[in-house]
């Protein structure tokens, strides 16, 4: 071989191949079968004579249920905020050089993951059982700044918030810890070498990078939390599930009200996944070579591809098809 000509060669004859991706007829059959199956299942549920559609329709937008939905959303939001704040503190403590902080963090996680949430809810809900008064003062002296009846401060809502938030913090701290560990140590060194303090480094350099790893499992946890609020039934916090079960205890339409509650949970979960998606995108920024596409961009892309495919099939002459693929 000697020096080759520098101009781009035109499509050569015999040595050419237009690459055709494998076709997958099985996929389309499977897809069709699947759609049929799901449709069949939904239909069989819907047409079941044990289910009273009128009741479902009645209660889906019943005022009591809607109030429950609001409370569920509020409780979830507040407890997740509380949990995240505690979790970050716990994770930082767990990774600190200070052995006391490490042990405290470990002990918290052990205790709150180890005992059932139900029991923690009962504990907070019935704190009055153990302590009639809550007071803020200097221990072992008689100085009290503030003192009040436990049951007036720790209302069911507050009890529920504390129970859910503090329990969740234990789980979330493990997630945050894994996230912080996932950030390359070189980042800390670079930040320190610029004179950043440990706290500033954490806030501006480490946490933003850890978010990418933290968000998906925290999405899991938020969705769990949405449903865990139902356990507050035990201390009579009237959220969605509790309301539904009160109504069904009255009219004995248990199945219908479970469907109503499920429908709302499904809606809330779906709504939650939107901010998660965009948060993942935001914190994924700069992580890969290219931004992940939004569903909207994907849809457009797919449409373009299908159009191209159709156009290719339309050209029965393979040579034409090839030119198309090249352009």
């Amino acid at each position, binding site marked *: *071989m*000697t*020096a*080759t000509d*520098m101009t*781009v*060669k035109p*499509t*050569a004859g015999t*040595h*050419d*191949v*237009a*690459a*055709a*991706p*494998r*076709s997958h007829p099985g996929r389309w059959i499977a897809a069709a079968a699947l759609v049929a199956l799901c449709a069949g299942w939904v239909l069989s549920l819907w047409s079941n004579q044990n289910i009273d559609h009128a009741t479902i329709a009645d209660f889906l937008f019943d005022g009591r249920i809607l109030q429950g939905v609001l409370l569920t959303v509020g409780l979830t939001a507040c407890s997740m905020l509380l949990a995240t704040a505690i979790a970050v503190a716990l994770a930082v403590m767990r990774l600190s050089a200070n052995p006391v902080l490490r042990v405290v963090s470990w002990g918290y996680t052990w205790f709150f993951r180890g005992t059932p949430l139900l029991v923690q809810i009962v504990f907070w809900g019935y704190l009055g059982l153990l302590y009639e008064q809550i007071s803020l003062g200097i221990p072992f002296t008689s100085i009290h700044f503030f003192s009040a009846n436990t049951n007036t401060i720790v209302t069911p809502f507050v009890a529920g918030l504390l129970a859910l938030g503090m329990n969740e913090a234990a789980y979330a701290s493990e997630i945050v810890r894994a996230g912080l560990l996932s950030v390359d140590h070189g980042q800390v060194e670079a930040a320190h070498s610029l004179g950043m303090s440990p706290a500033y480094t954490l806030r501006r350099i480490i946490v933003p990078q850890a978010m990418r790893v933290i968000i998906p499992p925290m999405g899991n946890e938020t969705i769990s939390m949405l449903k865990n609020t139902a356990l507050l039934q035990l201390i009579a916090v009237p959220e969605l599930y509790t309301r539904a079960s009160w109504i069904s205890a009255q009219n004995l339409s248990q199945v219908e009200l479970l469907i109503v509650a499920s429908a709302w949970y499904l809606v809330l979960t779906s709504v939650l996944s939107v901010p998660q998606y965009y948060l993942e995108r935001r914190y994924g920024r700069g992580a890969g070579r290219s931004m992940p596409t939004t569903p909207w961009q994907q849809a457009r892309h797919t449409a373009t591809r299908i159009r191209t495919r159709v156009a290719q099939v339309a050209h029965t002459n*393979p*040579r034409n*098809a*090839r030119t198309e*693929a*090249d352009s």
Partner: protein
Amino acid sequence: MTPSPLVEARNVRKHFGAHHVLKGIDLEVRRGEVMCLLGPSGSGKSTFLRCINHLEKVDGGRIYVDGELIGYEEHASRKGRAREMKPKQIAAQRRSIGMVFQRFNLFPHLTALGNITEAPIGVAHHSRADARSRGMELLRRVGLTDHAGAYPAHLSGGQQQRVAIARALAMEPKLMLFDEPTSALDPELVGDVLSVMRDLARSGMTMIVVTHEIGFAREVADQVVFMDDGIVVESGAPSRVIDDPRHERTRAFLDSVL
């Protein structure tokens, strides 16, 4: 030399989206030959190398290794069009093509010896004892007998790259592809890896090497190919291409590297 070339690329084209990276590459590598691929960053060297073992799918053109069309099956009904192979068939083709990556890509959860024996045992179904004894022999060849039990994280870059070479050799490939095997190494560690490659070339292995080590290319290569912007600008014996480049681009590139 031997009548048919081991590797034959014909009008290989590849684009990523609108970006045409390979614009029609034609190459031949004879059996036992060492070919060095030179070229500036972004010229498509890595992409071409990856097309040879179908890590990238070509969009047009054909690559034959030992007479077999890589990655595609001829489509009997429609002349000129070929369909992609099944994953199993592709895997079978890749077994006879060893590849060494710039960033080593050793399996971090396996020891040096484990890295070498994984594919012979799991893919080629050699017996465990055979694979291990052959693995130790390969480690000896790359001078790492003492590190058989070490995990990659505990090896220096040069040691990791030598394990990577031994790993590829363990499948007894007909062809070895090297993608800048020394450019992630500290200058002091480069020598060890190059000397292993030199031995390999002497033993008659067919090799395609993407490299910036002009000295190595001059000493070891039978053929040097200079690529730029997705095409082959010039090719020939090292003495010809390196010491007496005909094209302006080749000359400019060599000036910047030397």
